[in-house]
């Protein structure tokens, strides 16, 4: 037990170091082919540690494109992985993901409404789009929980079913809006958004994602032992002396805020929130005090690299990041799955 606890902390420290290296690498790699020294002069210049002599365009490539994009990827990856861990614990369902309560379809509906119905001019778009996505996600959450409550309980099965209903309904409304209003090639932007992409990252998305994590992660870590208790079932958890209903409700809301912020920053990026918790659980075990920090760091490292590949391997084009997350994530997941099974057998 002591040894495994130590190795779990060792894993988190290793992942934290990997994250720092990954962020540095992501800032250094790109299709613009800037030299390492140029990139780091710019970064140090903005940190007030050096005086860079570069063109304003070079400065913008590093400080307005690459750095916010890498930081957004890290924050979104961490947020989705933590949200996935919590959703899986609360619903005792290994298939649960952060979008379970209709959040991604609510966010998509908000974004599509802004993009296609002309609810914002071009300048307002960069603010209106994430805001609408966020509001859409929250409304979807309210609908899911409201339906679950009307059906009698905020128990895992009811909530999952309510979320499913809300998801399907909002997805249909989104399709209807696209069908009725998309003109010319405007559907293209919508599709890119629906697939999930970090190409729209800016310092605004960094702030949105980071604030959401700063608000939610401490709560999840503080309640890690409650998450452990959920695995035993509601009755057993109740016996441990906390309100199962209230805890579940508060965590659902917190995770939805987190996911809503992530979706508003990057669209619905698949895989990270569903598979990454299992991947990390295979390394740390199921105790949430160790699992949550490792999942946050692992998700951050994973998405930083997935996005770096997505924006560089078919220069100058961009791959959808969801393609990369699945192509490199699934083999890693299978490896961990098989090794974990073998260890438990022996």
């Amino acid at each position, binding site marked *: 037990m002591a040894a495994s606890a130590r190795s779990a902390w060792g894993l988190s420290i290793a992942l934290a170091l990997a994250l720092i290296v990954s962020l540095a690498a992501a800032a250094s790699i790109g*299709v613009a082919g800037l030299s390492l020294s140029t990139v780091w002069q710019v970064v140090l210049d903005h940190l007030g540690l050096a005086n860079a002599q570069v063109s304003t365009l070079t400065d913008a490539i590093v400080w307005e494109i690459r750095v916010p994009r890498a930081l957004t990827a890290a924050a979104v990856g961490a947020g989705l992985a933590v949200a996935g861990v919590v959703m899986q614990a609360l619903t005792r369902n290994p298939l649960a993901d952060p979008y379970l309560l209709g959040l991604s379809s609510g966010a998509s509906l908000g974004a599509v409404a802004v993009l296609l119905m002309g609810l914002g001019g071009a300048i307002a*778009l960069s603010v209106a789009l994430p805001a609408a996505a966020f509001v859409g996600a929250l409304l979807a959450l309210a609908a899911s929980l409201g339906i679950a409550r009307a059906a009698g309980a905020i128990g895992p099965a009811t909530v999952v079913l309510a979320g499913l209903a809300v998801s399907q309904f909002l997805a249909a409304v989104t399709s209807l809006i696209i069908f009725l209003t998309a003109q010319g090639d405007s559907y293209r*932007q919508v599709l*890119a958004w629906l697939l999930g992409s970090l190409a729209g990252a800016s310092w605004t998305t960094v702030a949105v994602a980071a604030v959401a994590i700063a608000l939610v992660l401490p709560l999840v870590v503080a309640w890690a032992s409650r998450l452990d208790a959920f695995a035993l079932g509601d009755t057993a958890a109740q016996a441990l002396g906390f309100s199962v209903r209230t805890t579940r409700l508060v965590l659902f809301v917190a995770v939805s805020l987190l996911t809503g912020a992530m979706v508003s920053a990057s669209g619905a990026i698949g895989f990270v929130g569903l598979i990454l918790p299992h991947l990390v659980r295979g390394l740390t075990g199921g105790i949430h005090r160790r699992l949550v920090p490792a999942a946050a760091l692992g998700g951050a490292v994973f998405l930083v690299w997935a996005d770096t590949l997505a924006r560089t391997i078919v220069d100058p*084009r961009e791959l959808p990041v969801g393609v990369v997350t699945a192509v490199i994530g699934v083999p890693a997941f299978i490896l961990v799955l098989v090794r974990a099974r073998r260890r438990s057998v022996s």
Partner: protein
Amino acid sequence: MPSLRTSLAAASALLLAACASPVDSPASLTDAQPSLAPEVASATAVAAIDNCGTHVALGTSPERIVAIKSSAAELLLALGLEERMVAAAFLDGPLEPGTGDDGTGVALLSEGLPGQEAVLGLEPDAIFAGWESNLSADGAGERDQLERLGIVTYVAPSACKGAEHQPSPMTFPLLMDHILEAGDVFGAAPQSQRLVAELEAQLSALEPDPRGLTALWYSSGSDTPYVGAGIGAPQMVMGAAGLTNIVGDVQDTWTSVSWEAVAAEDPDVIVLVDAAWNTADDKIAVLEDNPATAQLSAVRNGYYVVVPFASSEAGVRSVRAVAQIVDQLAGIAVED
């Protein structure tokens, strides 16, 4: 249930026969074509052509043509075929044929892509589609089904998507060939020859911009811009205007690129596609609002060239698009 199906089949067979007989068999010509020996085919001129992989019979003169997309409708108008058009659909904006008929008498079937029944209800004998995807089950219908109903289907050859049929790259000589081919398909060969002569004269009268400027053809998108790549109509038009496409080495008609790739090339000018749903001004606002693209020299200097959305498809507008770009470039004094 089986009896219903049988009667449906019988009814559709009747319908097929009824539709096919008056035109007398473009379908049978199509079927016969592959079995013709080459020398026979050349002896009887070309009886059918290969259009994106579908054989299209020549020698008919359709009287009830449906045009889908502006590029198709405007080519028919330029060929003086307004009288023979029953409707146009899925237009990019107001029809602007330039020469030929003005299109005021053409009915608009639908703003978006029309469905099969809407098209068949007009009893067309030919459908001219600007995009290959217009002729699908979700749109006006599958080509082989339409052919069986005696309807000639024709897709602008520049829009063929299959690897062996897609022009790579699209060029003005190919465009002229395509216009002549459309003249043959729609029974307007003399008009198409006049139109080509006119367009070729206009094109050769244009002086490409001599400064060797680099450019980006910005079509849509704000996070990952959708831009003209190396083998499509945007490349053809930019090349003829004397511009070097910074995305010209991507083997595609259009593509998505990252802003970082654009910034790395820092184009001298940006060609903005102006559409009703995404205007050139909207795109300028996106470029100026994004702190990274705001630093592009074309954005800082305001070196923009605007072309209408309908000009981004290869067609009768392409030569005019070159002229518009050349004219606007003349007003831009790029410093080195």
